[in-house]
């Protein structure tokens, strides 16, 4: 959190997560290459460098699809939230695997000409389709995202700018799909690969469109502010140690939490990455963000010492059994 920086804030969960990811990458690439060398013989034989290039490329695409599906899946079911916790590591892994794919491709296709390898590959273009440039564009975006994945950048660019910068992944994904569709698939006779790519794109885009627009509509149908107060519904619906998300028409969401019998309200936006605090619960006396575990005093909005994060709070009153939240943000102390 806010007390100092380390290269990686390792814990057991992250170590297991990374071990599984890198083992998975190693197994995938090994099986792909060895399987290709063993099964594709004679006229269908493919050289080892091309198999390695294809293995790394398809691995990066699979990783990108998984990374992009985690966010919307976590919005649909809390079961996927543990995957969200370490998503940045998956993103950095995706960049590294994609960079290896690019290095092998540039080395194999462009290393022996009179021009620079990168220029030779980018200028070649299969039948006028600049699919290599699309791949390079996607790789550059993934590089910027990986390079700014550290908490230092999140804090100093501000979460809003940082998350805005990382929306570029949507452009990177579109470029990757185009890179494959206008490159490898142009010379591939089977429709299976085109079908797989189309299916993957449909799943990723479908999940994001479904959850994204559900959130936008939720915002638009939020509670109205009447005389400076927001009717958050029956107070009894928020149980001890639990929280609820209150959407406000024209405003940002609010987390309503019950702790030691009292109802308290604070901004629903975690100071770390903007996670939904109202979807978390009270752990060790603090409302805990379901995304990365940042914690805040339920009624003060302040992180426990030595941490210094704060979120704005709101006054709460109960009238005729209904929780009423003051629209104006209060000062945390």
């Amino acid at each position, binding site marked *: 959190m*806010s007390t*100092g*920086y*380390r*290269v990686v804030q390792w814990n057991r969960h992250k170590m297991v997560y990374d071990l599984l990811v890198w083992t998975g990458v190693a197994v995938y690439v090994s099986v792909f290459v060895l399987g290709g060398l063993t099964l594709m013989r004679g006229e269908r034989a493919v050289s080892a460098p091309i198999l390695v290039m294809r293995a790394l490329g398809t691995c990066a695409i699979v990783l990108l699809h998984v990374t992009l599906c985690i966010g919307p899946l976590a919005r649909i079911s809390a079961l996927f939230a543990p995957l969200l916790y370490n998503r940045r590591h998956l993103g950095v892994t995706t960049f590294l695997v994609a960079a290896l794919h690019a290095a092998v491709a540039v080395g194999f296709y462009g290393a022996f000409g009179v021009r*620079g390898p990168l*220029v030779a590959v*980018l*200028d070649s273009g299969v039948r006028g*389709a600049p699919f290599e440039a699309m791949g390079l564009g996607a790789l*550059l975006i993934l*590089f*910027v995202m*990986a*390079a*700014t*994945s*550290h908490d*230092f*950048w999140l*804090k*100093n660019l*501000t*979460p*809003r700018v940082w*998350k*805005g910068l990382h*929306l570029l992944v*949507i*452009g990177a*994904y*579109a470029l990757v*799909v*185009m890179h494959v*569709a206008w490159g490898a*698939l*142009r010379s591939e006779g089977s429709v299976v690969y*085109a079908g797989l*790519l*189309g299916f993957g*794109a449909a799943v990723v*885009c479908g999940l*994001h*469109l479904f959850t*994204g*627009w559900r*959130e*936008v509509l939720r*915002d638009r149908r939020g509670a109205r502010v009447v005389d400076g107060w927001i009717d958050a519904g029956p107070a009894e619906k928020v149980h001890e140690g639990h929280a609820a998300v209150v959407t406000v028409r024209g*405003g*940002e*969401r609010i987390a309503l939490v019950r702790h030691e019998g009292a109802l308290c309200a604070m*901004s*629903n*936006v975690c100071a770390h990455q*903007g996670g939904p605090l109202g979807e978390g619960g009270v752990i060790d006396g603090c409302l805990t963000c379901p995304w990365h575990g940042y914690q805040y005093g339920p009624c003060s*909005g302040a992180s426990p010492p030595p941490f210094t*994060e*704060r979120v*704005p709070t709101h006054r709460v009153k109960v009238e005729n059994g209904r929780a009423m939240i003051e629209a104006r943000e209060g000062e945390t102390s």
Partner: protein
Amino acid sequence: MSVMSVLLWALGAHLLVGAVVGAAFVLRGLQRVDGAAVGAGWGVRLALWPGAAALWPVTLTMWLGAVRRGAPTPARTARGMRALRTAHAWAWVAAATLIGWGLVGALAARERTSQVIAETAP
């Protein structure tokens, strides 16, 4: 010189300047920008170097204090998140449209290429 060569030279120049600015920043400027980075180890500085290099104009602006940014207050963050949710939804609409057309176009181009190959084959 092709357009691609010019773009690659520009990219190379950007990264070269970035490597120098980024190295200076992680060695000398880090702690001036963020108090939490005081005493940061070599591993942290090395991890921040690629980002400082890639975004070197931003890095330089932060370091020199050319733009006086206020501290990222929670209220500013909260207001930004609602706009980001909307931007995120629209960005996926644009991406889905682009991907859909791109896939259909690539498949159509593949069919045309197959026909040309079949017609010109001896």
